[in-house]
């Protein structure tokens, strides 16, 4: 009976158990279906979404920096090239203790605070396994020492990267410009994708103006990376397209000669070929060494350059604005002839001062005793201020300005470089617009001798002198001669011609005669420094003296310093040979004093360098 009861109990227990496991299996089945539903949602429903995420995980596109085009002078002399620069890089993932590593590296190479600061910045911004620059521009000895001890320096790599260099140095720094590390401001003006693999960009001059041409097109490399960012394999490559090589109109030999002719004085020289507007030399002295900018100039060095009273970073040729002084007189004379205010032959007696009828004020001539009887040509040659005061008074500012504007004053020349300024061509409208004041007759007088409000850049002076030499023809001054590899698809740049200046031929003759007289006649202002030495070719030119304005209120009063700073700027513009102009020059010597005594000899040296061969004989035009 008990056994039977036990059996019955066992039977019931077994049935209960069977019921429970069937229940459990049903629940398990339901859970499995839930998992299956979830998995199908991920694998079928959201498959493409996760495929994208998976591809984004594993694929990385790396930029391949293009090789930058080189810059040459018109004769093929290299002005800016690329060379392998050795730089020290550290891959943090492999370095282990970075501080200890830096400590050890100090034994091999001097690491400045700037290097270390840049390195720390790079460490924060890098991607995994991306090497961080520690020091650029290693010399061979350092490279060798580190290479030998590489096993002690985990994660340290010496990388050879193409870096810009400037074999011609500081004499060309303003015309060629320089490259520097890309900064945030640069990134705003370029397409960041084009610079993804590039560390440097043109910062000034031709390097900046022709950035797009020189830079080239970056290539791309699609790689597969693992979770640590290490490249596993390369999937596809689009090679980069190198930048275009460019040839400048600059004649390196003439540029050097011009720089040396400055003899350490501050100033600018612009030399143009009047036939086509090619810029043969573009000097701003002093120059600066562009190389430190490429390697990353230190704050201290940059501050020193910026605070240097000689302003080596300032491109005087394009950005410097100076009163043109007497160099503008030929244009004023031409305007007077064109406006029929006077004739070439009309003479006047030039005293030592001029008075506007009914006014007390005396407008002085630079020569206290005056110049005596002068006609137009002689007035230009002796640079009589009083003659031009008289013309200007008759003509008034409104009839003087249009022709000056036609010569390009008050407007940028439009040269293919950076930093060019437009100067000021004052007029009634200009004065009302900028100063809200009426024009005074006296201002017309000083405008006629290139003082007062009028400002021009040395490039503008060369430009209007070229227009004079060309009898009105105005090819635009430019620096780009041709593009592409020499002999392989060389792409010459045709000069662009601007609206010519239309003046009666006899008026040109008058002015040309005057400019030759200024150099080659004993009464001429450039006679003493040029004409009297009997150059083997004829020069037409005009001296000028550009008055320096008073000290600013915040400048310290220092007698010695003040005296020199108050000296006038010496100017000379001219062209040669006078009968068939091959070179046009504008020379500015800051605080040089007299144009005839200081600027004219500089111009003579530059012209000689261009027009004479080693034996001192004139050579075929345009073939230096």
């Amino acid at each position, binding site marked *: 009976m008990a056994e039977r009861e*036990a059996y019955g*109990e*066992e039977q*019931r*227990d*077994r049935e*209960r*158990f*069977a019921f*429970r*496991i069937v229940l*459990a*299996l049903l629940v*398990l*089945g339901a*859970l*499995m279906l*839930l*998992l*299956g539903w*979830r*998995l*199908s949602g*991920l*694998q*079928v429903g*959201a*498959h493409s*979404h*996760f*495929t994208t*995420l*998976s591809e984004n*995980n*594993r694929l990385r596109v790396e930029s391949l920096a293009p090789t930058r085009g080189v810059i040459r002078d018109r004769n093929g002399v290299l002005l800016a090239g690329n060379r392998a620069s050795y730089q020290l890089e550290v891959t943090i993932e492999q370095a282990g203790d970075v501080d200890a590593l830096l400590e050890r590296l100090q034994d091999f190479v001097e690491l400045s605070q700037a290097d270390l600061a840049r390195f720390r910045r790079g460490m924060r911004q890098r991607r995994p396994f991306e090497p961080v620059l520690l020091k650029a521009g290693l010399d061979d000895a350092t490279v060798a020492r580190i290479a030998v001890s590489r096993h002690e320096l985990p994660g340290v790599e010496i990388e050879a990267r193409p870096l810009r260099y400037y074999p011609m140095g500081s004499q060309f720094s303003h015309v060629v410009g320089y490259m520097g590390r890309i900064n945030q401001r640069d990134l705003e003006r370029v397409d960041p994708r084009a610079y993804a693999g590039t560390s440097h960009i043109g910062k000034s001059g031709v390097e900046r103006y022709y950035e797009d041409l020189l830079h080239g097109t970056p290539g791309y490399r699609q790689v*597969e*990376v*693992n*979770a*640590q960012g290490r490249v*596993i394999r390369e999937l596809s490559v689009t090679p980069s397209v190198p930048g275009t090589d460019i040839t400048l109109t600059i004649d390196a030999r003439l540029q050097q000669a011009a720089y040396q002719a400055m003899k350490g004085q501050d100033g600018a020289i612009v030399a143009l070929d009047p036939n086509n507007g090619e810029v043969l030399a573009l000097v701003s002295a002093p120059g600066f060494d562009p190389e430190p900018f490429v390697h990353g100039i230190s704050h201290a060095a940059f501050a020193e350059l910026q605070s240097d009273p000689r302003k080596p970073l300032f491109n005087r040729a394009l950005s410097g604005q100076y009163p043109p002084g007497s160099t503008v007189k030929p244009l004023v004379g031409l305007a007077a002839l064109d406006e029929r205010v006077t004739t070439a032959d009309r003479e006047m007696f030039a005293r030592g001062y001029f008075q506007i009828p009914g006014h007390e004020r005396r407008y002085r001539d630079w020569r206290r005793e005056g110049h005596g009887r002068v006609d137009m040509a002689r007035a230009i040659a002796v640079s009589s201020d009083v003659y031009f005061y008289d013309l200007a008074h008759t003509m008034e500012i409104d009839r003087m300005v249009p022709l000056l504007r036609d010569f390009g004053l008050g407007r940028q020349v439009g040269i293919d470089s950076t930093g060019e300024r437009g100067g000021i061509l004052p007029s009634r409208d200009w004065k009302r617009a900028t100063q809200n004041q009426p024009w005074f007759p006296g201002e017309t007088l000083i405008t006629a001798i290139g003082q007062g409000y009028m400002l021009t850049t040395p490039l503008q002076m060369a430009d209007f002198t070229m227009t004079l030499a060309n009898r009105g023809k105005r090819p635009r001054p430019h620096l780009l001669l041709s593009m592409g590899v020499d002999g392989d698809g060389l792409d010459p740049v045709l000069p662009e011609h601007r609206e010519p200046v239309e003046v009666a031929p006899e008026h040109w003759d008058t002015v040309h005669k005057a400019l030759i007289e200024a150099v080659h006649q004993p009464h001429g202002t450039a006679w003493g420094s040029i004409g009297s030495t009997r150059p083997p070719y004829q020069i037409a030119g005009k001296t000028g003296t550009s008055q320096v304005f008073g000290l600013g209120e915040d400048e310290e009063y220092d007698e010695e310093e003040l005296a020199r700073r108050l000296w006038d700027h010496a100017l000379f513009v001219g062209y040669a040979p006078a009968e068939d102009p091959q070179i046009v020059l504008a020379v500015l010597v800051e605080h040089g004093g007299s144009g005839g005594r200081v600027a004219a000899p500089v111009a003579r040296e530059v012209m000689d360098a261009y027009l004479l061969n080693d034996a001192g004989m004139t050579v075929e035009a345009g073939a230096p």
Partner: protein
Amino acid sequence: MISVTGRELTTGQWVLRSLRLDSVLLLLLAILLMLGLVVLFSASGQSMQALERQSLRIALGVAAMLVVAQIPVRSLRAAAPWLFLAGVALLLAVMVAGEVGKGAQRWLDLGILRFQPSEIMKLAVPMMVAWYLSLRHGRPRFRDLLVTVTLVLVPVYLIMSQPDLGTAMLVGTAGFLVIFLAGLGWRWFVGLGAVAAAAIPLLWSQMHEYQRQRVITLFNPESDPLGTGYHIIQSKIAIGSGGMYGKGWLNGTQSQLEFLPERSTDFIFAVYAEEFGFIGVALLLLLYFVIVARGLWVAALAQDRFARLLGGSISLTFAVYTVVNIGMVTGLLPVVGVPLPLVSYGGTSLVTLMVAFGILMSIASEKRLVNR
């Protein structure tokens, strides 16, 4: 042909019967273990070393299974209380002298090998509960419930305080499954559920920060894509990008390029799903389901209550492992550190599971010969 109890047996069947092995279960386990090695080879980055070590563990596991299968069920039953007591003692020893690994105190260093006493409890707890219930008759009463719940919760508490939430949960599950299979009345389950719900805040306060973080990131893994959420995000990417047919063996980029963390251990299912796709996943789920079903079938035919309850619990615990691991890898459940049974790289879990299947084999070979 050998004749035993009047039925004709082939040589193979005779060998299996002599070794007290269940042919169906053995075949299913063999398939799963082989598949596991195939996936592991890919997940480990084609490491022969990992393959060899895992093969060695499988050999060890199979040996353990064979040995355990030879133990008569009544001996297992007799050993149950002693094993349980020994397990609790070891857990207490770990609390005192355990070694810290991965920030938790789980390991006991025995000189030659380090092992986790909590693994023993995965089997000792259901054995103990089954032992106790086999002494009783009929539906478990309130007194039985009190005793069994205590038997379960004491080791669970000890394991949780190591802290090892995953193992504690699985040990508890194994124990409660025995109580469930014994036919505990539904009202008691409702009561237990209410107590469990009430315990959640308590549990939360007992949790370590990293465990809470895991629970939090489950619900919003994208909130911490570089930290705790990274596992789940990369796992979902691996599974989802596998698609219907998978990227092919050894071709899963998420695993081969090491985007997937823990890819040869807890997250090996994601590797499998990436390389074999939804089709492969469905087949694997089916395989697990059939193994569980076979285990339950064996339990249903068992001789006595102890064997029945233990066999049922072992089978269902295996099912819970599977569901929790896949649920975790697919982002349905928190990342609690449960390996994919018999597939994930690692020895302890594998050997414990093979011992459990040894018990099932033993039960299978002692099934009721006649269904009266």
